[in-house]
């Protein structure tokens, strides 16, 4: 069962993502901001995929990812953004971002991307 760490500062969005991802058969962990992401990933075995909101208080998903990459953690990452346009180009360069998901979330697209990142069929 692939593990996904989902980070968003909105509890409602976290609940939505958790529900949908669990219905798809994934194991879901949640974080309310970038600092929690860094703490959780550093404390235990990293998850299979990171699903991070780009804008969060305290520490953004982008800043959290930058710290994780600096610490040598190469977990695939998807950035959820309220912006309809993709990444900020140069600013996100070298962060190993595997895709952008815009809000409102197209779940079919999200599941397809996660499946690509976790390999054929949910990993065990």
């Amino acid at each position, binding site marked *: 069962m692939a593990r996904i760490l989902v980070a968003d500062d*909105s509890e*409602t*969005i976290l609940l*939505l993502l958790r*529900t*949908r991802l669990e*219905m798809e058969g994934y194991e879901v962990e949640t974080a309310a901001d970038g600092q929690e992401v860094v703490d959780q990933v550093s404390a235990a075995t990293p998850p299979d995929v990171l699903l991070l909101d780009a804008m969060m208080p305290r520490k953004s998903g982008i800043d959290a990812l930058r710290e994780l990459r600096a610490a040598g953690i190469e977990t695939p990452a998807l950035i959820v953004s*309220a*912006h*309809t*346009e993709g990444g900020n180009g140069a600013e996100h360069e070298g962060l190993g971002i595997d895709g952008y998901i815009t*809000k*409102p*979330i197209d*779940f079919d697209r999200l599941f397809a991307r996660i499946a690509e990142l976790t390999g054929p069929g949910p990993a065990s």
Partner: protein
Amino acid sequence: MLTGLAVIGVARFLQQRQDYENATARSYQREIQARDRLGRGEHAAAARAAVIGQQRRRTELRDEISSETRDTALLVGAGLIAGLTGAALLFTGLIASMRRPLEDLVEASGQLAGGDLDARVKIGGLSETATLGTAFNEMAGELQRRAGERDQLERMKDEFVLTASHELRSPLTSVQGFAELLLLEREKLSPKQAETVEVILDNTRHLVRLLNDLLDLARSDAGRLTIRPVPTDAAGLIEEAVRTMRAQFDARRQTLALKLETELPEIEADRDRIRQVLVNLLTNANEYCPEGANIGVKARHLDAEVEIDVIDDGPGIPEQQLAHIFERFTRGDAGETQRVGGTGLGLAISKSLVELHGGRIVAESTPGVGSTFCIRLPATATDRGEAI
């Protein structure tokens, strides 16, 4: 000075004429008085003498006056000539001293009209031109101040729209996401409940569309609507847009025919953005045309461009509306817009996007016959080279 002299001459002439009139009037009065004194029929000689004397006096007076008049006329003529010469000299001087400041004003006005709000004139010369120059500079300063305020307001508005649409996106994500979640378990809902959830979803999608369009327009206004054009397979992109829309056309039993020229060149396009434009045009055709209408998409290679036409045999667009069709919030008839779910922003955004690509979009329509929306996009340079 000289002009003054001429005026005095004219005044004197008028005074002479007045004197002559007065003298004539007085002499007649005296004659009548004499007749009264002598009585009717008597002292006719005295009366005759009086009349002769009167006539002589009149002749003398006339001579006197005519010589005076001649003098006056000469004086007036000289005055006028002198006056005109003086005036001409004066004008030459005036023109010379006004010319530079006026030329400066004309130039500065041109700069101001051209948008250079820093344009000012040097104050100098005659007091009149100096006053004019000062007034111009004050006006330019005021214009600059107001333009500054307006720019700041524009920036605040752009920022507001960008932030607001960003903030609205999160709650919309929740509403849409949970409504979709409910529909995933449709079998547990009553038909009425399922229908209700679908209404929620439809409206959420409409809100998202409106939000996306507003965001695009705000970006466009702020000069932040950017594209990343790359060589793109035109045919593939058109087919993709048509595929996206196929179900909507089927639902309204409309035909959607694709007629692409073989070997269309690649176009310089931001794939997502041009797909957005095509989907927008197809959505309009789908929604504004009645059930059973025929819609066609044609594409051909024209010189250094690819032309894509979206043609329908729908109700058409009245001429007056057609002129404003690419302006924001211009929409079809009020009756139609109730049924049609558009935002009134799609064509304005499409135009911005096509123009950002260095292309053009035009609309032609004949009410009762149909409409054609035509896009032209630049072909990729290498393909152009091969084509020539």
